């Protein structure tokens, strides 16, 4: 916005805010600086664009009849009660957490939204003093290229179309977005599949395009993103594995499991290394558990089920085969180094 345009929009805002009656376009053209010198056509165009700017700023424009006798030309005004931030007071602790939280967003556009929200609170007399909580530093990042277009689409309720997992084109009415473990997901109504779907933003390689106007659909009034995300996410554990773990090792695995009672230990077919703890670990996805166990190498031994044990041994064989030089040679080098020391 050139300075002149910013001035015009601000003057228009003030004019519509102070007027007691609805002002017709013709009157606005006369009294708001910046409209006088425009041709009829240019004025129409400019005025339409300016109204759009007001709307984007969140300034509520009322349209009504300015003259009860001649109601053929619409008039405009801004109702003060709809324009102004309602009274809000935050105590020192509340203001401090708001001040700290406001630094969170790393994404440029959303950081800008936070900055202007905080400016409004300051203008309403709130003094966020983040210094009180100097040892807290939250951050929210959104590095996925699809984030910004989807964020705006959610806010505007605009239908979007995008490529998913490098193949199919999907069309979605985005209801909301969630972030879990630093990854963003969008949830909405997939119009082609006629079902609620969740998409991971990092799997959307292109920039989602808008394929509708704003306010194109309704978001379910009882939308509960958290439970939707849970229901659309990978399954709850349905099976369990029995794994022997070296003491003090594989804490992630150990924490998800529980110790096995003595009578069940006796029933196990496979032996386990002496001193290892035997735990039962619930899992939903055998492939994922296999990867995790292989990651712990000799610190975790699968005892049951047989399929998992076989899968783990297979994967260990694959990795063992990746050695760049033969083990025998490496062992010689290793012991030679030991000897030198």
């Amino acid at each position: 916005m050139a300075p002149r345009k910013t001035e015009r929009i601000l003057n228009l805002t003030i004019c519509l805010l102070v007027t007691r009656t609805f002002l017709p376009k013709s009157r606005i053209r006369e009294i708001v600086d910046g409209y006088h010198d425009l041709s009829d056509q240019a004025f129409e165009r400019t005025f339409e664009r300016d109204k759009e700017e007001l709307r984007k700023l969140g300034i509520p424009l009322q349209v009504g009849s300015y003259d009860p006798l001649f109601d053929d030309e619409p008039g405009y005004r801004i109702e003060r009660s709809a324009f102004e931030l309602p009274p809000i007071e935050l105590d020192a602790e509340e203001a401090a957490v708001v001040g700290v939280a406001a630094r969170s967003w790393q994404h440029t556009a959303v950081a800008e939204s936070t900055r202007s929200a905080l400016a409004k609170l300051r203008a309403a007399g709130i003094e966020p003093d983040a210094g009180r909580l100097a040892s807290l530093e939250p951050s929210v990042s959104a590095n996925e290229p699809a984030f910004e277009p989807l964020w705006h689409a959610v806010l505007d309720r605009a239908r979007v179309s995008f490529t998913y997992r490098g193949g199919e084109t999907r069309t979605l009415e985005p209801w909301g977005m969630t972030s879990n473990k630093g990854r963003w997901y969008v949830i909405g109504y997939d119009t082609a599949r006629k079902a609620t779907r969740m998409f991971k933003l990092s799997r959307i390689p292109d920039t989602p395009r808008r394929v509708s106007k704003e306010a194109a659909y309704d978001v379910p009034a009882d939308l509960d993103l958290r439970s939707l995300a849970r229901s659309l996410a990978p399954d709850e554990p349905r099976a369990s594995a029995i794994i022997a773990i070296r003491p003090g090792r594989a804490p992630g695995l150990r924490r998800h499991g529980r110790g096995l009672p003595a009578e069940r230990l006796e029933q196990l077919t496979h032996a386990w290394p002496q001193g290892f703890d035997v735990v039962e670990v619930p899992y939903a996805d055998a492939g994922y558990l296999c990867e995790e166990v292989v990651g712990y190498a000799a610190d975790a031994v699968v005892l049951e089920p047989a399929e998992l044990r076989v899968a783990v041994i297979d994967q260990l064989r694959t990795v063992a085969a990746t050695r760049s030089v033969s083990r025998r040679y490496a062992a010689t080098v290793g012991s030679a180094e030991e000897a030198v020391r």
Partner: protein
Amino acid sequence: MTEGQKSPGQKSAGQTAQAQMRRLLSLVPYLRKHDGAAIADVAEAFGVSPQRIREDLNVLWMCGLPGLSPGDLIDIDMDAVDGEGVIHLSNADYLTRPLRLAADEALALILALRTLRGVTATEDREAIDRALTKLESVAGERSNRFGGQAEVAVTGGREDLRATVTDALRRGKRLELTYDVASRAETTHRFVDPLRVFVLEGFGYLDAWCYLANGLRSFRLDRIASIRVTDTDVAEHHVELRDVSLGWFDALKDAPLVTLALDRSATWVAEYYPMESVTPADDGGLTVTTRVSDPAWLRGLLLRLGGGARVLSPEGAGDSAADAASEALDQYAALAG
């Protein structure tokens, strides 16, 4: 992840047209409340440069009531602005309150508070809940909808544990930790002086001076198995804490580079870990280069990926994974035998 790094060409704070218009509408009521405020302080309060505030003032004093005769214009004492660098603004009685929160502003702030909530406990958490309720109420009916339209989950460990960390930070006391080191897959026991709690990419961390490592370490809150506040006061540590806005990249900048060939099945790795470069390969996989500060991390990754990743350089960097796999196989063989 590569696309997401901050580029120097990014627009600086408050530069867009919409941002300026929003700022002007807040600046007027703010300046009416803070008559004689220094430009530098106003700039800081609004999170922009002093130059940006000067530009704003140049717009504001061209605006006012319709007619724009001298008596209608917003009055700004430009001599004071240019002289002492303070702002006196008057004749703008119609802008006493800021504009209501727009949907994007309300949602951004609500999510930021929910993020902070994930690493706080007790009093701070209660203050966050009160602030959230108040903000949601002034943002109006519309924001009840918006507040529900996005969600951020932070993995920040148990609340009692967070309360202990907060307590130690407040009182400046040393902590005793039992901590799971993921890359080494082992549990450790140590004393630390807490310095800061931060959130990065969905996880909460404690930055502390660690007496076991004798250096600054970041501990993921959900991997702290147990924690206790000691009676010992923290010592003074002259350390520079990581700039959270730079993400993990900065922490790894001096670590050696490793180049991997990822199969199609393993391409998720490029999304999950910071990569220096990512190049598509002919077979649908990727060639990636990443910084590895801890060989144990690379070993664990290669094991997990099975044959899905091969080390291209430096030669032999993947051998410890192969050896660990052989050792595990020997163990299975011995148990069967």
